[in-house]
């Protein structure tokens, strides 16, 4: 499988803050990549930077991002902004966290859904109307004709997120970016949205990048997982491998802080809080909160991303030999 979308050695520095440091990941057609991390870990930033959605900080970005279309790989960061605009929406679709604030409150569903189809697919009249209804049916919205005339405030949270997904999918993108799409929703609706995206991916064969702070949620739906912390990738491997054999102290701590049904076991937490301002440091970025610190280099050197036991699909950035 060849990668359709990804970033390569991407760094973003704003003032003194190292928002992203040498981040690389990619995703292939039909695959789901999960990016997991706490708030401020840079998980959304790498995607926004790659797709040109941080125009103010374009100068601060180094490294590369690419999109492979018809076997031709295009570098997104060298592209003029007018070119990357054409790819956004048509080749890369986005679903954001809070559908309440992510939809324009003054425009009907129809207006918001059709402006992109008109722009990228040049449909109009009857063809456009058919496409709109088809999309709403695709995301499981009954009575599309009535819903098209509705404003966002007239819809429920789950319905709004379905509309967001319909917008993201309206031009048959190759990549779907789901940036915490279920965080603002009820648990039951959350399950429906996850299932919906999974089904759509099977039918349409697109690549999905699912960004979340919820490791167990991502564990259910991703093929591969990237764990981010303080703007860096700490571990990346296949989902099964991550749950079976986590090699980074942070990943282990994350897995251990998952609540269980057994009330006698106290919920495990990671002491301390994630770094607020992440100045680039010459030591392990997780050092302050790590309970191992088993190598003298932890405090003086930045660990490189190394393959676990020679397996190039399982990378980890630590000196610690964890049990």
């Amino acid at each position, binding site marked *: 499988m060849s990668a359709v979308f990804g970033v390569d050695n991407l760094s973003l520095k704003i003032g003194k803050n190292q928002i992203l440091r040498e981040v690389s990941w990619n995703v292939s057609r039909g695959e789901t990549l999960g990016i997991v991390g706490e708030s401020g870990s840079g998980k959304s930033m790498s995607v926004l930077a790659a797709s040109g959605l941080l125009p103010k900080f374009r100068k601060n970005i180094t490294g590369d991002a690419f999109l492979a279309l018809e076997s031709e790989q295009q570098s997104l960061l060298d592209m003029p902004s007018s070119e990357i605009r054409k790819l956004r929406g048509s080749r890369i679709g986005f679903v954001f966290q809070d559908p309440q604030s*992510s939809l324009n409150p003054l425009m009907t569903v129809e207006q918001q859904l059709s402006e992109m189809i008109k722009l990228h697919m040049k449909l109009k009249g009857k063809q456009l109307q058919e496409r709109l209804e088809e999309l709403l049916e695709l995301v499981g919205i009954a009575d599309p004709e009535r819903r098209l005339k509705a404003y966002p405030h007239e819809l429920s949270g789950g319905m709004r997120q379905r509309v967001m997904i319909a917008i993201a999918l309206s031009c048959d993108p190759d990549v779907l970016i789901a940036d915490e799409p279920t965080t603002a929703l009820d648990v039951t609706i959350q399950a429906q949205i996850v299932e919906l995206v999974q089904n759509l991916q099977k039918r349409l064969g697109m690549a999905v990048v699912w960004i979340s702070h919820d490791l167990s949620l991502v564990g259910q739906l991703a093929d591969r997982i990237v764990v981010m912390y303080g703007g860096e990738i700490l571990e990346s491997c296949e989902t099964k491998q991550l749950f079976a054999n986590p090699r980074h102290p942070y990943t282990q701590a994350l897995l251990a802080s998952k609540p269980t049904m057994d009330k006698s076991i106290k919920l495990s937490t990671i002491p301390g809080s994630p770094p607020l301002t992440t100045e680039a440091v010459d030591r392990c970025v997780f050092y302050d909160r790590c309970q191992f610190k088993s190598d003298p280099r932890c405090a003086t050197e930045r660990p490189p991303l190394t393959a676990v036991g020679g397996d190039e699909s399982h990378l980890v950035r630590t000196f610690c030999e964890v049990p």
Partner: protein
Amino acid sequence: MIKYVARRISHMVVVLFGVSIAVFSLVHLVPGDPIRVALGTRFNEETYQALLVSSGLDRPLLEQYVTYIFGLLQGDFGVSFRSGGPVSEVLFERLPATVSLASFGIILAIIIAIPLGVIAALNDGKAADGGIRVFSQIGVSLPDFWTAMLFILLLSATLQILPSSGYVPFGEDPVQWLRHLIIPGLTVGLIASSIITRYVRSSVLEIINSDHVRTAESKGLSRSRVIRQHVLRNALPPIMTISGVQFATMLGGVIVVEVVVAWPGLGRLVFDAVATRDYPVIQGVVMLIAVAFLVINLLVDVLQARLDPRVLR
């Protein structure tokens, strides 16, 4: 929508009633005897008494108010102490000059304020933003009579391209009407524009950083479409509110500017009426201003409801 407008109009009636009480009491609290002022050198005890009785000022305040309010309900604003003519006629005579000035001023203000405010917001913190904020600060701080005099100095005295004062009705000579309108219009328009610019800037800044604008960017829409359709449109409601207030204020008469350029509008009228204690005229102008405010606010709210479906909820 009809229910909404009906409810708003019923509120307006209550407000106007309150305004009439407030104005009536305030006017009568101001010291000074209107009959004496009106008579001037023709004063003698006999005519004084006759005028006092005919104007109704000898009767108890409450009775005067009730008479006034019943008159108002029939469209009768009373009789001017000074000219002896009906107040409604005086108001009607002055209205065209003020409406011309206010309309010119508000249109100019909006034409200036929207682009400036948007440019300032898009360049937040940069040189263009700084320049526009300085302009707006100057516009807000300069006293209007002084700005008017500066324009007279420049356009009338130095360049000699415009008349320095006076008013010509549109029906008489449209070109002269416009030529006379420019100096006072520029003055009130620039002041209003610097106020509105600030609202445009902050409103656009707030919207531009909102999530739905990021969604619009993620759709790959052109920058100009994002700004027009998703930023400016959503930023409009507070801009419409402040523009409505500015327009209503101008309709109430821009007193000092009207005095400086000898503009025969409502501002000039109320200035003279206060000087001569012409109670019915003062009351009439204030009631008219109150009605203008309420009607314009209603119009703004109706427009907003058309723009934002959540208003009617």
